[in-house]
Each structure stands twice: as structure tokens, then as C-alpha cells.
């Protein structure tokens, strides 16, 4: 079996294809646009906040399967989470990829990215949508504080 066979599991392909959360919000609390300098991949991420945290997310993601699958996982999971829990999952995902830490238990689908551990140059692909999400949240926080 080749190294890539395990990387491109069906789950990744299905999530990428489903593109959960694709689109734009009519009214976003915050928005971010992030590029991967190395390949030009791009994520535009919007969040709408309510009393307890994220009410809705929407994204437009142009990228490789890993990047698109990651954005799609966000589309499934982000609503209902608050800033602290998003920060935690981004950190946990980084640790999973870089240090072999376990899959964050409340985002079990992230296990599909475990085979990417071996491919350092692809970590950024998985992380990019999560970094975009965190940045979109930070931007809404700033806006909140200033109003």
C-alpha cells in the first residue's frame, strides 16, 4: 500500500465533496480571508455570533482535498461552539498533526487527518480553514468590544 492510499481516505474525499457550510452569510459578525502562500489556496470564512457563541458559519474554500475536507468539517461542527472551544480545537488539531496527540474528542471526524501527520508540508492545508475560523472569531470579538 502506498503512503497516499492511507492519506486520501474516503472520508476526506466525501467531506471535501459535500463541502458542508459552503456559501455566504446574509449577516456575518466576522469574516476572514486566509491564503496559503505556498500554493495560493484560499479560505474565506464567515461567522455569525449569538448569545452563547457561533450561530452559523459559511465558507468559500478553494484548495486541495485536505483543505476542503477540513473546511467542510467546520461546516458540520462549528455552530454551537464558543470562542474558547474553537481555540481549544485548533490547538488540539495542531498537536494531533505535529506531536501525535489524540484526536480532539468532540470533533471525531478530525481522525481522518491522522495520516497527514507524516506529511509536514500538508499540515498547513488542514489547518488553514481552522486558522481562518479563529481569525473570523477574533475579528467579531474586536467589533463587539468596540460597539
Amino acid at each position, binding site marked *: 500500500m502506498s503512503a*497516499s*492510499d492511507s*492519506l486520501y481516505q474516503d472520508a476526506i474525499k466525501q467531506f471535501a465533496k459535500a463541502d458542508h457550510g459552503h456559501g455566504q452569510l446574509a449577516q456575518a459578525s466576522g469574516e476572514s480571508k486566509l491564503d496559503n502562500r*505556498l*500554493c495560493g489556496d484560499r479560505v474565506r470564512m464567515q461567522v455569525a455570533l449569538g448569545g452563547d457563541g457561533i450561530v452559523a458559519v459559511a465558507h468559500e474554500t*478553494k*484548495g*486541495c482535498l485536505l483543505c476542503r475536507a477540513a473546511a467542510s468539517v467546520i461546516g458540520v461542527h462549528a455552530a454551537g461552539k464558543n470562542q474558547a472551544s474553537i481555540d481549544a480545537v485548533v490547538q488540539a488539531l495542531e498537536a494531533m498533526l505535529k506531536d501525535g496527540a489524540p484526536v480532539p474528542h468532540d470533533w471525531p471526524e478530525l481522525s481522518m487527518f491522522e495520516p497527514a501527520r507524516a506529511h509536514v508540508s500538508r499540515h498547513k492545508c488542514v489547518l488553514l480553514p481552522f486558522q481562518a475560523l479563529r481569525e473570523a472569531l477574533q475579528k467579531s470579538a474586536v467589533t463587539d468590544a468596540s460597539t
Partner: protein
Amino acid sequence: MNADATALRAEFPLLAAAPELHYLDSAATSQIHRSALDAVLHHETTSRANVSRGTYRLAEAADLAYENARRSVARFLNAASADEIVFTSGATASLNLVAHAFGNTLQAGDRVLISEAEHHSNFVPWQMLRDRIGIDLAVIPVTADGRLDLAQLSERMGSRCRLVALTHCSNVTGEWTDVDTVVAAAHQVGARVLLDGAQAVPHGPQDVRALGVDFYAFSGHKCFGPGAIGVLWGRQKLLAAMPPFLGGGGMIGEVTPTRSTWAEPPHRFEAGTPPIAQAVGLGAALDWMLSLPWPAIHAREKALCQALIEGLKRIPDLRLLGIDTTTSNSKRAPIVSFDIPGLHPHDICQVLDAHHLALRGGHHCAQPLLAALGVEGCTRASIALYNDTADIDALLAALDVARRELT
């Protein structure tokens, strides 16, 4: 000298130690030839000293080795004199040197003409010059099949064109520039011609005098030499008329607190301790290249490129970038870029890697060209003298796997 790929491959330590590797990324960086590696090692262990300043025997040996390397480059480029060879840290540094030193002799409104097909290294320095002194930066567009559109060359040059700076050979499409046409048009209006030879030099010695150009730039790491070394060739008169770019040791005549005077070229443009061992390694690589049977190597490179193109054409939906499939590819360096709609180049390259194929996907530092061709990224196979049919066969087979795995 044997031009057989197996024999050549054996002379590259990394490839010799990794028989399973199909290295098809030589346009990004070539592997290093053992003569270059040996020369670096030999220099560092027998002749290491700073150059141009010492009188002891070790320093004389270092000086001699460094200046001999200059002569090797001059021979490789058929330059009129070794004094026309400036060592830099790479093609990018060479191009920036011209953009500053020659660029600073230009006036606001003077035109510099580049093309949409340029590598970022021959694009961004001219944008920066434009923003610095207000030159008029004009860009030759590419045709739908990725060639420089030289149809309206004279109009694009206008009357105030001072420099035409073009790639000798595209790092994305492998297309060679029609230098004769460019030189004729440029010299008619008194413009100088710079060629970015980064992708040309790996495919054999060049003759700057026959080309009729004024500046030529390339990098050592792409032509089987060490990294951290590049070359700028310039006509002696032009170099002599240019102010220095970087300031420091070795490039001065005299320094006083109030003002300084400059050394003659090439030293004027080599501020600080130069890349000595790297120049020596490059000299060895170029000497070795000069000894090769190029017609045989070109024939093989062309045959491999042709086989690759034929194989790729059989893949449904695959788009070859910048290859006019209706004409022969006689003026093509063995670089082939392609796009498979729906498959991301990084995913493709990842699957290829699992099959020991080293290819690069992305924008290849040529975003304006890719934008003109209507893609964001592409996958590139670049062939060098150590590649063989096994590499092409493996690539075509693995692409079938990739298409299955990724959809």
C-alpha cells in the same frame, strides 16, 4: 563521455543512493553532480581562505580557484572575458543587481519591457524599480497557448524602451524565447536585452555573444552545481558604466568618512566575502557540462518530453499548459505543466510521491503566467539529463492511480 542516462545518473550521489527515486523536479533544483560536490569538499579542506586580500599560499590558492571558476563560467557562456562574470548568490540576486545598478541609470518614464511569462524573480524587481523611480513597466502578453506574443513587439517597445528583460526559457511551459527577434527589435531602439537563463543553462552551454544579448543571469543549483551561487554576465562596457549595488568589502577603490570610490567590474558588484567554495563547485559543474555530448543528450531529453506529452494527452480532460498541440515542440525545453480539472496539484503530487515521483504542484512562482492561462496552479514535470524512460513510465502509471485515488 557517456550520454547514457544510467551512466549519468550514477554520477549524482543522491540519485545513485536512491535507485527508486524518479526525480522530475529539476526545474526547481537539479541534483548536484559529484564533480561539483568534490570540488566544494576539496576546496574547503585544502584551499579555504578569503580571496583578493591575502598573500600567503593558502590565500593564493583560494584566489586562483575562485578566479579559475570565473574563467569556467566565461567559457561556458562564451563571454569575451572573465571580467564580464559577476558571481552572485543566485539568479534572483543577479536580476535584482541589474534592476538596481542598471536600473539606477534609468530616468522616470524610461520603459522596461518584461513579459507575462516571467518567473517572479524577473517580475517583482522591475515592479519595485517602477515604484522606486517611476520607470514605465510594460508587459508582453502571452498567447492562448502560453507563448510570448511578439507580434507587436516594436509598438510595445516604444521609443523610450531602455531594457527588455525576458526569460530565456519558461519554467512552466518550457517554451524558448525567440531571442533573435527580440534582440533585433531592442537594439533598433537602443534598448538592452537581459535574458533570465535559469531554465536554459541546465540544458547545455549558452553563447551570449551569438545570442547578441547584453545581460545573462542564472543559478548554480539548477545546473548541477551547489546552491547559494549565481552568475550575472554583462558586457564589459555596460558593467563599467553601472554604479555598484551592494556596498562593502572588496568592491571599493578607497573609503573615506565622506566618500568612497569603486573598484572595476566584476569586483565592483561583489561586495563582501563572495561565495568562494560555491563558485569553485559551479566551475566544476560547468566544466563537466562542457565535456558532455549535448546532441545526444538533447535528443534523449526531447524524446522523453515527447513521450510524456503523448502519454498525458491520453488522460481525459487533462490540459497541457502552453503547448500548442498542433505544432511540433522543436523549441521546447523538457518541462511540461498540466492541469487536471477537479484534481488539486498538491493532491496529485502527494499521490505521485507515494510512488517515488518527485514533482511539484503550485504556481511555480509564475502567477501572472498562470493567471493568463486561466489556472491557479498546475503540476509540473521537469526533465534533466539524468532522467530516463523509466521516470516517464512511472509518472504516467502513477497519474492513473492518482485519478482513481483522488476522485
